[in-house]
């Protein structure tokens, strides 16, 4: 493959705009707000649920509770043991995914129209009546512990954990949501039940669907699915100010290629200059080969397979970060080039031509994102989570187009802080001056 796609694109990059879709905003009889795009040409439905809060709701000393709880939802629920639940889903070819993130729990369901009632009855058991039986807790806990042991030997995760610890102080973001070996081993059934009640409540659920279903039918199914959730859950954590120390931190690890994460404080998605920052990042390190970092570090010097930067706007913090990986004897040069580009962008902004290309890329790419029921349902629920109106799809490209060279220059001066730009390097880098360990 020519290059790996940048990971961790912000929510905005997934937003399609002015695509020809008709978003219906439905309020169900039980009071849930649901967004729907009807599409009857293929006989299935994609349903997306999000519970805001996610792993950042872990209580003190219970890190990993939300993650383990979410992993257990499909491992025994109501009348079904883990195997019975899986067999039930297989028999109707329904796909359920349960994922944990820093700020949300994501549940994705895909089911054939003809099996809608059975599929959602099954899904309901996992959301409302998970069992958390000891045998299942022990089995899934062991899977989580296995994953954590792997993380301890994975350069990317080592770098990520160190970076988060530096960035987020005593906020839950500072540690991995999978927990630690010690915290996961200590979790009890009561902890998981508490996490379930605290994280999955009506006051934080967002719902979207796309596919072969009518608004009335969807409203009926959603009410039956979610009516028995608790009304309220745990309070959300507070905001955290990101303050990176600057410099280069080396975490020694015996491996041929050093992995570096870099970054500092970012910009909130609500900020009036967010779009200008977003366009700036496309020029500096987002997107593909056209970005300056890719051109300087890979195309001109062959120092890496991939280098990217990205804006991460979490609910309670914002960072501007990036990643590069180079052989141990070449990472120092890659870092030097990235630092120089960071300063250059802060001092000089973007050229008229770079701005034009970034804008035509962003505005041209947006309608291409609505290319299937799964994609559409995901986009809709993401918009709801951000608090965007449904007609945002009509206005987003105008906001991109409105960004000027001066806007980018202004936001570059404000956002880019070479003195705070911190590199966390995992490997055996040569010729690299570490400022801390």
């Amino acid at each position, binding site marked *: 493959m020519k290059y790996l796609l940048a990971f961790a694109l912000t929510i905005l990059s997934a937003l399609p705009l002015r695509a020809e879709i008709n978003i219906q905003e439905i309020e169900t009889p039980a009071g849930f707000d649901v967004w729907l795009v009807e599409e009857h040409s293929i006989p299935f439905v994609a349903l997306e649920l999000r519970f805001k809060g996610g792993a950042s709701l872990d209580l003190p000393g219970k890190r990993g509770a939300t993650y383990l709880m979410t992993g257990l939802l499909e491992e025994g629920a109501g009348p079904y043991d883990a195997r019975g639940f899986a*067999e039930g889903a297989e028999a109707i*070819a329904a796909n359920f995914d349960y994922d944990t993130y820093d700020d949300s729990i994501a549940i994705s369901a895909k089911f*054939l129209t003809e099996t809608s009632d059975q599929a959602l009855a099954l899904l309901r058991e996992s959301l409302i009546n998970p069992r958390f039986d000891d045998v299942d807790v022990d089995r899934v806990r062991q899977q989580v512990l296995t994953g954590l042991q*792997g993380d301890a030997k994975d350069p990317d995760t080592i770098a990520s954990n160190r970076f988060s610890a530096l960035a987020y102080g005593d906020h839950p973001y500072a540690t991995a949501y999978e927990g630690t070996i010690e915290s996961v081993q200590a979790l009890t059934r009561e902890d998981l039940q508490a996490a379930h009640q605290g994280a999955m409540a009506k006051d934080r659920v967002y719902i979207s669907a796309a596919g072969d279903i009518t608004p009335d039918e969807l409203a009926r199914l959603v009410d039956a699915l979610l009516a028995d959730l608790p009304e309220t859950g745990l309070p959300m954590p507070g905001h955290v100010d990101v303050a990176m120390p600057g410099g280069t931190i080396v975490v020694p690890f015996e491996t041929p290629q050093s992995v570096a994460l870099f970054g500092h404080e970012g910009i909130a998605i609500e900020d009036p200059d967010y779009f200008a920052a977003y366009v700036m990042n496309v020029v500096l390190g987002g997107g593909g080969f056209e970005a300056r970092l890719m051109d300087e570090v890979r195309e001109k010097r062959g120092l890496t397979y991939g280098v990217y930067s990205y804006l991460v706007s979490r609910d309670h913090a914002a960072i501007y970060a990036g990643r590069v990986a180079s052989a141990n004897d070449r990472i120092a040069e890659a870092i030097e080039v990235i630092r120089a580009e960071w300063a250059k962008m802060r001092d000089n902004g973007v050229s008229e031509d770079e701005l034009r290309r970034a804008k035509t*890329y962003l505005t041209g790419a947006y309608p291409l994102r609505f290319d299937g029921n799964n994609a559409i349902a995901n986009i809709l629920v993401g918009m709801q989570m951000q608090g965007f109106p449904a007609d945002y799809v009509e206005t987003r490209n105008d906001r991109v187009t409105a960004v000027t060279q001066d806007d980018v220059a202004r936001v570059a001066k404000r956002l880019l802080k070479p003195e705070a730009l911190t590199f966390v390097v995992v490997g055996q880098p040569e010729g690299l001056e570490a400022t801390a360990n």
Partner: protein
Amino acid sequence: MLRNVLKATVILVSWACAAIAQEAEDQVTTFSLDNGMEVVVIEDHRAPVVVHMVWYKAGSADEPAGSSGVAHFLEHLLFKGTKTLEPGELSRVVAENGGSDNAFTSYDYTAYYQRIASDRLELMMRMESDRMVNLQLDEGDIATERAVIIEERNQRTENDPSALFREQNSAALYMNHRYGVPVIGWRHEMEGLNLDQALAYYKRNYAPNNAVLVVAGDVEAEDVRQLADTYYGALPANPDLTDRARPQEPRQLAERRLVFEDPRVAQPYVMRSYLAPERNAGDQKDAAALVILSEILGGGQTSVLTRKLAFDQKLAVYAGAYYDAMSLDQSNFGLIVVPAPGVTLQQAEDAMDQVVAEFMVEGVDPAQLERIKFQIHAQQIYARDNVDGLARTYGSALTSGLTIQDVQDWPDVLAAVTANDIMEAARKVFDRKSSVTGWLRQPQEAAE
């Protein structure tokens, strides 16, 4: 929900009731250009997007010995420019038009694609057809891009003990076939790749009569035909194109075992790979039985290996099976067990063998087979939501020795598989003489 353990992926490709199959086939139009280039058009008018792909019937297994990685190296170099395109211009033009582009190389094919607004299809064809025959390279391109692919190998393989382990396994399984050589190349050969090797591979393999065009999305087949005629039809066929006669495996007489140790191993596991038949044109029955066998043994929570080893005996944190039916030459069928804490690799391997032996006696659970077949049926419906995936299915099939008819017959072939077919396929494939058993672990003195 397990992460960081080798994923055993099985691609379930599609079975369907007649109506669904018919709708799927109605989406698809196929034809050939006068110069021999095959064309597949898959229509989906829900979004104004098109995926434009050119697949070459040439991958790493078609490389000359001693230049491993050259197929993938050339893939990178195809972005360097032509007589009329500046280096990087193709990707820049794609991005300026709101699109994305990339390429990938496998054992049996190399493919290039763009995903873009459907009214830009002609521009894509103009550029893609240009680089099929007009590539221009210099020594500077070679040196920089060779450094990039070595960093790619560092990232994908050298930094990942599991990837190194799989590489050793394949090398042991294939004693004569190029499937034993990694797609990205052996490092020492990558370091010596040069301009002549890249251009020789290009001249031998890149031609319209060795390529498949797949266009999927918001397009009309007739429009695609006219554009394809204009841009690809104008290119001359390569008269010297030869058959893809690659060295085949001899009869294998001795099972192979290996232990790969690396201090970076966090979770040891055992992996057994058997040589296995692949889908062949007009003859897909054995492969279909193996697809379902891999689902029965290792396809998720209710599979035989998971049920017995993870749920009942609690000897494994993960157990699975894998099989890739799409392959030009002989494929392989694999089993994996990640032992639970306190369980040795020997115990895990023995338990795995015991489960398979019991399966050979107990046979197929009819209820499980029925569920798998219904899932295959549903997959046919879900697959229509993802036109990129359909494009890849056709592209990989047509470059792996299959025909359009084989692709469209495949759902019926899967649906016709019986419990007897599965057991017969299992009896044939589980032959230790044509297998490799690998253990991945930490160096023993460093282990607990």
